[in-house]
Structures are given as structure tokens and as C-alpha cells.
């Protein structure tokens, strides 16, 4: 269970949000809603341990009680993140990107494993293309592929369907369904169609 308590963030004098509280159970997909500038992306970054909150805490409670609670530093390694401002390496090919992120995560990927993972995102034909040559929709799929590479218990998606076509949305839907089986997901979105994927709403 992901547990967020009294979370607040400000940059200098600018307040992003104050007093955010929510809990998300395993097996749940939650939508993070809010107007532009409400701090949806910031919230995801804090959950991923990439940004330190001004106050409050994020905890992972594996069995529902406080026993074995994980703090943010450990939690960081359990996250898969796909966000527009967290791109993959443009000078690497699609396959090299997957291999790199697998390797630094400690997942040694065989060429077959890379190929079969890419097939799930219909990217296997573009395997040897540089990421900078992909269209924005395909690059969004590649980001999804990287985010799900290590079976993260916690999947964080920021505006996932922004550049996706119908086929891409179907892939996204399958990713989210699969995530219910292995953990939970937070989806920051303003797109009403994304809400169909979600069980819960978190309003910022």
C-alpha cells in the first residue's frame, strides 16, 4: 500500500501544494487529477524519490500495517516512471535504451528478451533506430517499455496518452491491466479517457 501523509512542496516562495494525503492499495490504479500547475508531475516525482518534499512523507507499506515500511530512498528503486520530461537517450537506439536501463537495474537482457519485450509495444521493427528518429507517439511507447522493464511494483505515468494513437492506447490499457497484477499505478492526467483505466481518483 502506498501511503502519502501531509505532503507539501514549495519552490522558494512558490507553493505547489500543501497537505496532500492519500492511500492507494495494491492492485489499484489511481488517477491523479488537478488543473495545470496543480503539481501532478511534482507529486509523481516526489513519490519516485526524485524530488524531496518540503514536508510530509511517502511510505510503502507492503502488508498494510507499519511493519516493514519502506522509506523514499528504497521506494525509489521500486518505481517505473514514464513522463514527458523524463525522456530516454536520444542518441541510443531503441534496443540499446532497453539494454542500458535493464543493465543498470541489474536485469541482464538477452537479445531475445529485448525483442519479446519490444513486441508487446509494437516497437520490434524499430529496434535498431535511434530514439531521436522515432515519432513522438513511438517515443511515448518506448518510455512505457522502459518503465515496465523491471516489473516495478509501483508504476508512475505522467500524461501517458498524450501522444498515443488508438493502437498505443490499447497498449497502455494492457500495461495498466498487467500492473494491477503486480502492484499499483498512479496516472497523472487531464484526459477523461484515461479515467476509464482508473479505479480511484486523487484530487490535487
Amino acid at each position, binding site marked *: 500500500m502506498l501511503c502519502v501523509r501531509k505532503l507539501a512542496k514549495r519552490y522558494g516562495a512558490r507553493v505547489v501544494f500543501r497537505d496532500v494525503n492519500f492511500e492507494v492499495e495494491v492492485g489499484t490504479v489511481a488517477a491523479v487529477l488537478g488543473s495545470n500547475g496543480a503539481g501532478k508531475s511534482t507529486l509523481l516525482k516526489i513519490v519516485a524519490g526524485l524530488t524531496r518534499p518540503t514536508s510530509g512523507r511517502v511510505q510503502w507499506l507492503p502488508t498494510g500495517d507499519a511493519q*516493514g515500511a519502506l522509506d523514499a530512498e528504497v521506494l525509489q528503486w521500486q518505481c517505473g516512471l514514464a513522463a514527458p520530461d523524463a525522456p530516454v537517450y536520444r542518441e541510443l537506439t531503441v534496443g540499446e535504451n532497453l539494454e*542500458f536501463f535493464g543493465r*543498470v537495474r541489474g536485469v541482464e*537482457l538477452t537479445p531475445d528478451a529485448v525483442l519479446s519485450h519490444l513486441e*508487446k509495444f509494437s516497437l520490434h521493427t524499430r529496434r535498431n533506430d535511434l530514439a531521436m528518429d522515432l515519432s513522438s507517439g513511438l517515443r511515448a511507447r518506448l518510455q512505457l517499455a522502459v518503465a515496465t522493464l*523491471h516489473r516495478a*511494483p509501483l508504476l508512475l505515468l505522467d500524461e501517458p496518452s498524450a501522444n498515443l494513437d488508438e493502437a498505443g492506447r490499447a497498449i497502455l490499457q*494492457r*500495461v495498466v491491466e*498487467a500492473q494491477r497484477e503486480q502492484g499499483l499505478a498512479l496516472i497523472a492526467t487531464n484526459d477523461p479517457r484515461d479515467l476509464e483505466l482508473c479505479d480511484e481518483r486523487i484530487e490535487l
Partner: protein
Amino acid sequence: MEIGSSAAIQPPGARESTLHPLTALVPRATWATVQAVFWKDWRSEWRTRAALNSIALFSIASPVALSFSVARQRLEPETLAGLLWTVLLFAALVGLARSFVKEEESGTATLLRLSCPPDAVLWGKALFNLVLLVGTQAAAVPIFVLLLNAQLSRAGLLLLVLLLGDVGLAVVSSLLGAIASQARARGSLFAAIAVPLVLPLLVAASTGTAAAFGAVGPQGDFWPALQIMLGYDVAVVTAAWMLFDFVWSA
């Protein structure tokens, strides 16, 4: 459908069993992850050649420019050594922050922070910087020696001094590159914060190089210089190892 590679860390299974052993999954820097970072930087550098071009251009063009201006003069070994290290230092300053600056500018630092053990980032990039320095110097130092008529009386000593100097430069520039890349005015700030910290290394390296170019007397005694460089390298490696996490992580 099952998302996730067949070689993933955990076997699929009941929710509780897939979620419980998380604490064991904090990645540690291993040789494999360091290598991964190194090859990643190597590939993207090879495809763009941004850092390589600026370092190589600088360290090869400056000896040429120098040789025009001082061609008629017979330069003392100490002067030559000072010139060589000034050239090498500035060549390093224009290129070595590049790998971190690029991560921050293109936004890829976010995913790297999320996926890669911090130590692996530091040592992978330090290794990359070291290879970049050694590679460009393999071309630049012979050109310098030829064009400026340096008497290379102790070639082995010169190699040793260059190597010790490069290790120090590579590690310091990785740590400071990570610092500067997270601030405004990245490029100029890097030079400002790096110069004071590499001055001791530069002085010791010049003294050692002067001895290699045949300086005699007190300047020809190179042992103190080598000891200082070794000590400096050990000090900065230790400092970088202990402090990098605070620089890199949130």
C-alpha cells in the same frame, strides 16, 4: 498479457510474494553497471562527438598556436611543462563537464537517477572522462613535444605524470560536472569551481613534467611531485566516493 521481460528480477506470482522482498532490491554499483554507464556515454559520444571535438580541437590547436608565437625562443623545461599543463587543463575544462551537462539538459538525468545506482554513474562517467583525456592526449602531447622542440629526456616519467594527472582530472571533473550541471550557467560555473580545486594537481604535474623535459637542480627532483599527485588522486577519489550521493540524489 504479461508486461515485463522474461529475465525480470522476480517470478510472477501472488501479490504478496511479488511485493514483499523489496528491501533486497536496492541496487548496488557493480562493475557491470559501471560498464553500462561507460558504454552508454561512449556510444552517444561517438555518435555526436560533442565533447571529443572540443577537447581534441583545443588540445591540438593550442600547441600549434603556441608554436607560432614562441617559435624563435629556446624555452626552459619548466616553461614548457607549465605551457603543456595549461593547455591540457583548459582542454579538460571545455569538454569534461559535457557528459553530466548533457544528461541535465536533455532531461535524461531523471531516468538515470531513478534507475542507476549513484556510484555507478560517478565511476562510469569518471572512466569515460579518463578515456577521453587519455585518447586526446595520445594525439596532443606528441604534437606539443614536436612543435615546441621539447627535449623528452624521461619519457616513462612523462607517461606516469600524465596518467596520474588524468586520473585526478577525470574524477574531479566528474564530481564537479555533476555539481555544475545542476546549477544555472553550467559551462562557465564548471570552470570557476574546477580551477581552484585542480591547482595543486596542476602545479605538481608541471614540476614532474619539467623533470621529464630535462630540468635539473631542485626542479629536477620529481619524487615529491609524484607523491603529491598520488596523494591528490587518493584524496579526490575518496572524497568523490563519499560525497557523490549528496550531489546526485535529491
